[in-house]
C-alpha cells in the first residue's frame, strides 16, 4: 500500500500533522499504538508559560524572541520567532476545525484551575472549563462544587481552600445517583471515563440536571469535575440549558475525559478528510533506499509493507515509547535516529522530581526543517514532531502541547512545500 505521508504516532502531534495534510489533499495514514498523552490532559493546551529558569511569562508572543535567542536548539527556535504567532494560530485553527472548541490567545496567557485548586498559566482551554484572566482569582464570588459520592479522583477540599484564599466562597455538595451504583459497587470502576459514559445517557443527564437545579442554591456558578461528555460533546450545554445555570468544569486525575474527547474529535476529522487511522498497530521494521525511508512494516500487517514519500515520527517521549532508555543509553527505537541525551546515566536525573529533570529535555535530534538526523545527517523524508523532539522542557517552560502542535504544523507545511 502506498501513501503520500505516513505518520507514526496518533497523539496530539500526529493528529494535527495528519489532519492538515489530509485537508490539503494528501493521502495520509496514521499508525497509532493506542493511548496518547491526551488521555491525561488537563483540558488546556500550554504554549509558553515560563523561561527555562522558571521565570513567569504572561505573553508568549512577546517572550518568543528572547527564547529563540537564548536557546537556539529549542523547537520554537526552528519555527522562528517571526513565524511563531501564525503557527500557533494555525494550530489553534486545526483544533477548531476538528470541533475541539478552545479559547485562548498567544498574545496573552490565561489561567486554568488545577485539581489542586491552584491557577496555572495556559494558552488554550477547552470550552466549558474554568478559566481566569489573572492568577488573582475567579470572576465569581460564590460557587458550589458538586461531586459524585465515592469519586476519589477529585478531592473537593483542595479546591475549596484555594478558592477561599482568592476570594471565592465555595460550597461542596456531594450527590449520589442510582445510575452510578453499579460502578460504585465495583471497587475499581469509579473513574472519570466510566462516570462520563453514564452521563452520556439522556435519562442520566436529566437526573443530573435536577440534582444541579436542587443543589445550586444562590451560587453564581456550579463547578463539576471533568466526568461529563466522553462520546458526546453537548452534555454540558444540555445541563446549562436545562438548569439555566452557569456551569464550569475542573480537571480530575486521569483518565482525562476532555483529552479523550479531543482525541476522538481529531481522529474523526482526520478520517472525514480522507485519512486512514490504524489503531492498535505498531511499526516494527522498515526498508530504506539511498538514505531515505522506503517502506515500513507493522505488527498487524506482517510482511505487507506501507510505502510513502514522506514519513513523520510523532511517537512521543518515554511514556509513549518514542524514546526508550535502557541502563546504558537513550535510543529512538524505530529508525535508530540520533538522540540528544546525556551519556552517563547519573546525569539523567536530579534529586528533586519537581525540579527540571535532564531526561525531560532528551529527544530526537533534528535539523531546522525538523528532519530526523542519523549519524549527524538529515534523513530527507523522515520528519520529527511532538514530545519526542529534543531541546525543550515541557513542564518547566509550560510548552508541551504547544511544541507538539506547532512542530506538527511546521512539519506539515514543510511536507506541503516540497
Amino acid at each position: 500500500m502506498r501513501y503520500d505521508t505516513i505518520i507514526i504516532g496518533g497523539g496530539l502531534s500526529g493528529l494535527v500533522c495528519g489532519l492538515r495534510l489530509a485537508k490539503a489533499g494528501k493521502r495520509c495514514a496514521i499508525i497509532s499504538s493506542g493511548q496518547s498523552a491526551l488521555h491525561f490532559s488537563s483540558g488546556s493546551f500550554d504554549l509558553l508559560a515560563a523561561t527555562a529558569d522558571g521565570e513567569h511569562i504572561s505573553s508568549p508572543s512577546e517572550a518568543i524572541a528572547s527564547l529563540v535567542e537564548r536557546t537556539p536548539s529549542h523547537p520554537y527556535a526552528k519555527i522562528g520567532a517571526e513565524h511563531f504567532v501564525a503557527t500557533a494560530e494555525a494550530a489553534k485553527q486545526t483544533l477548531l476545525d476538528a470541533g475541539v472548541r478552545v479559547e485562548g490567545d498567544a498574545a496573552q496567557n490565561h489561567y486554568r484551575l488545577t485539581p489542586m485548586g491552584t491557577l496555572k498559566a495556559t494558552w488554550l482551554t477547552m470550552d466549558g472549563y474554568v478559566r481566569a484572566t489573572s492568577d488573582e482569582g475567579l470572576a465569581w464570588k460564590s460557587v458550589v462544587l458538586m461531586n459524585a459520592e465515592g469519586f476519589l479522583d477529585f478531592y473537593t477540599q483542595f479546591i475549596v481552600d484555594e478558592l477561599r484564599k482568592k476570594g471565592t466562597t465555595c460550597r461542596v455538595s456531594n450527590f449520589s445517583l442510582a445510575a452510578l451504583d453499579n460502578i460504585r459497587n465495583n471497587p475499581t470502576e469509579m473513574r472519570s471515563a466510566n462516570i462520563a459514559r453514564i452521563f452520556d445517557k439522556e435519562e442520566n443527564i436529566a437526573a443530573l440536571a435536577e440534582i444541579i437545579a436542587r443543589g445550586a442554591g444562590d451560587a453564581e456558578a456550579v463547578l463539576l469535575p471533568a466526568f461529563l461528555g466522553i462520546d458526546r460533546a453537548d452534555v454540558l450545554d444540555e445541563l446549562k440549558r436545562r438548569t439555566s445555570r452557569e456551569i464550569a468544569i475542573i480537571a480530575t486525575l486521569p483518565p482525562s475525559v476532555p483529552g479523550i474527547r479531543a482525541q476522538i474529535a481529531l481522529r474523526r476529522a482526520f478520517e472525514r478528510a480522507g485519512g486512514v487511522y490504524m489503531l492498535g498497530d505498531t511499526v516494527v521494521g522498515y526498508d530504506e533506499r539511498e538514505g531515505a525511508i522506503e517502506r515500513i512494516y507493522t505488527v498487524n500487517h506482517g510482511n505487507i509493507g506501507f510505502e510513502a514519500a514522506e514519513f513523520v515520527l510523532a511517537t512521543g517521549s518515554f511514556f509513549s515509547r518514542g524514546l526508550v532508555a535502557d541502563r546504558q543509553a537513550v535510543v529512538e527505537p524505530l529508525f535508530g535516529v540520533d538522540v540528544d541525551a546525556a551519556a552517563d546515566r547519573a546525569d539523567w536525573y536530579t534529586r528533586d522530581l519537581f525540579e527540571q529533570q535532564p531526561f525531560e529535555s532528551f529527544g530526537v535530534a533534528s535539523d531546522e526543517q525538523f528532519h530526523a538526523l542519523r549519524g549527524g545527517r538529515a534523513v530527507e523524508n523522515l520528519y520529527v514532531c511532538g514530545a519526542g523532539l529534543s531541546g525543550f522542557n515541557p513542564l518547566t517552560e509550560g510548552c508541551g502541547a504547544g511544541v507538539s502542535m506547532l512542530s506538527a504544523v511546521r512539519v506539515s507545511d514543510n511536507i506541503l512545500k516540497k
Partner: protein
Amino acid sequence: MQKEFDVIIIGGGATGAGVARDCALRGISALLLERFDIATGATGRNHGLLHSGARYAVNDHESAEECIRENMILRRIASHCVDETGGLFISLPEDGLEFQSKFIKACLSAGIKAEAIDPKEALRMEPSVNPALIGAVTVPDGSVDPFRLTAANVLDAKLHGAEVLTYQEVTELVMEQGRVVGVKALDRKSGEMREYRGRITVNAGGIWGHNIAKKAGVTVNMLPAKGALLIFGHRVNNVVINRCRKPADADILVPGDTISLIGTTSSKVPFDEVDDMYVTADEVDLLLREGMKLAPSLEHTRILRAYAGVRPLVASDDDPSGRSVSRGIVVLDHATRDGVEGFITITGGKLMTYRLMGEWTTDLICKKLGVDAKCTTAERPLPGSRKEERERTSKKMHAVPTMQRESSLYRHGDMAERVESSTAAKRSLVCECEEVSVGEVEYAINALEVNNLVDLRRRTRVGMGTCQGELCACRAAGLMAEMGRYCTSRAKQDLAAFINERWKGMSPVAWGDTLRESEFTKWLYGGVCGLTSKTKEE
C-alpha cells in the same frame, strides 16, 4: 509532677520495639520515643531476610546459632510477618564446590538444617535459579516483613501498658549527679520541647545511637556501613537464593510480598550522611550484575526502586568493608563500663535477633531495678499472628471481595476485621496495585498512628506497587485531609514530599518502564496538578 517511667527507650526500630514489648510483658513501665515513624532506620531498610544463620555459619558460629534459634521462634510468634519460603545456597562454576562441604559442616554444628541437593533438584524447587549452578544446599531461610514485625511489637507493648510516641527526637539526656534520669525531646509535629523522666534510659538508636551515647558523655564507637538494595517489580523467586561462598556484595535474593529484593553492597559512609542515603548508579549496576548470577531473569525484570540502609556495626577496627566486624549483640551497661548510672546501650545484632536483644536488655533492666520476672516473648504470639483468630476473621469478612480480603488479612492478620468494609464506599480502592480500600486507609489513619503519606504506605502498602503511588497518593492525601489529619495545604505539601520520597528510590533505576512511570508522574503532578517543589504551607 511529671510521671516517671521505669524505662525510657530511645529508638523505634525492631530492637527498641522488642525492648518495649519485653518490658511491658514483665510489668515494667516503659516509654518508647522515636524521632520519625517506627521502623524507618535500618529496620526498614534491609532484605527482610529471615536468616537461617547459614550465612554466618562459617565465620561467626555464635551469630549463626542465635539466628537459627530466633528463626524458629519468629515462625511461631510472628507467623503473619513471616513467609516460610526456604532457602538455597548455590555454587556457581566460578565459586567451585570447595566451600560447600565446609559450609554444610558449619551449619550442622550451629544447629542449622543444611542439606546438599542435586542442582537439577534445585532448579525444580526454584526455576529462576541460574541453571549453570554446580551445587546447591537447602537451608531454613525465609522472609520477614520488618515493618509489620516492629508494628506488632509496638502494638503488643501498648496493649500491655507501654507508651509509644513517634516523631519525638531526643535532643538531650538529662543528667543528675552523673546519672541519666530522663531525656529532653523535640516534638517534631508541634515543634515543642518535652521532658520525660525515667529510672533507666535505653539507647536503641541503631547507628544514631553513636550520637545518643555521646550525649551521656560516653563513647560507643560505631561504624556506619551503607548497604544498598534493589526491589524488583514482581516475585522473581519463591525461595531465598544465596551464593555458597564467603559473604560478598549482592549475593542474596529474597522474595517478599509481591516483589523480590537483591542486596546488598557494603561501603563505609561518614556519619553526616547517614540520615540521607542515596543509591548511586554504580551501586545499581553492581547489584544487577551480581544479582543476574543468582537469577539470570533479573536482567529483564523491571526494577521498582533502589534504597539503602546503614548497619549499626560496633567497630573493633577500621575495616572499610564492615564485614569482618562481628554481627554479635552488644549490651553495654554504662554504669559498669563508664561509671554512668541509669543508661544502657543495646546495639550490634541484626533484625533476626531483635527479640533476643530485647530479652538481654530487659534482663539487665530487671537486674538494675530489682524486678524478678521472666522473659516470655519467645512463647507469646504477637498480635496479628493468632492463627485461630485469623480464620475467624476471614469468615467474618466473607462479604469483602476475595483479593481485597486476602490483602487486608495479609497485612493486618487477625486485626483485619477492624477494617470497615460494610459499604461500597468503604470497599472502593485507593490503591489498585496493592488492593488497599478506603476502609483500610481509614483504619490505618485512625488506629495505627499515621501522620503522613509515608507512614500510611508503611502500614498499608499504598503506593508500593508497580505504579509507585501515581494516583493513590493523591487519593490518600485527600482522605487524610478529609479525616482531619491535616489541612489541605499540608496535604499538598505531604503529597509532594511523598512523590519525591518515591522518586528518591526510582531515580537511580530510572530507565525502561520506571522512567516511563516517572515521566507520567511528573506530567500528572507537576503538569496537570501544578505541584512544585515550592508547594509549601501557606
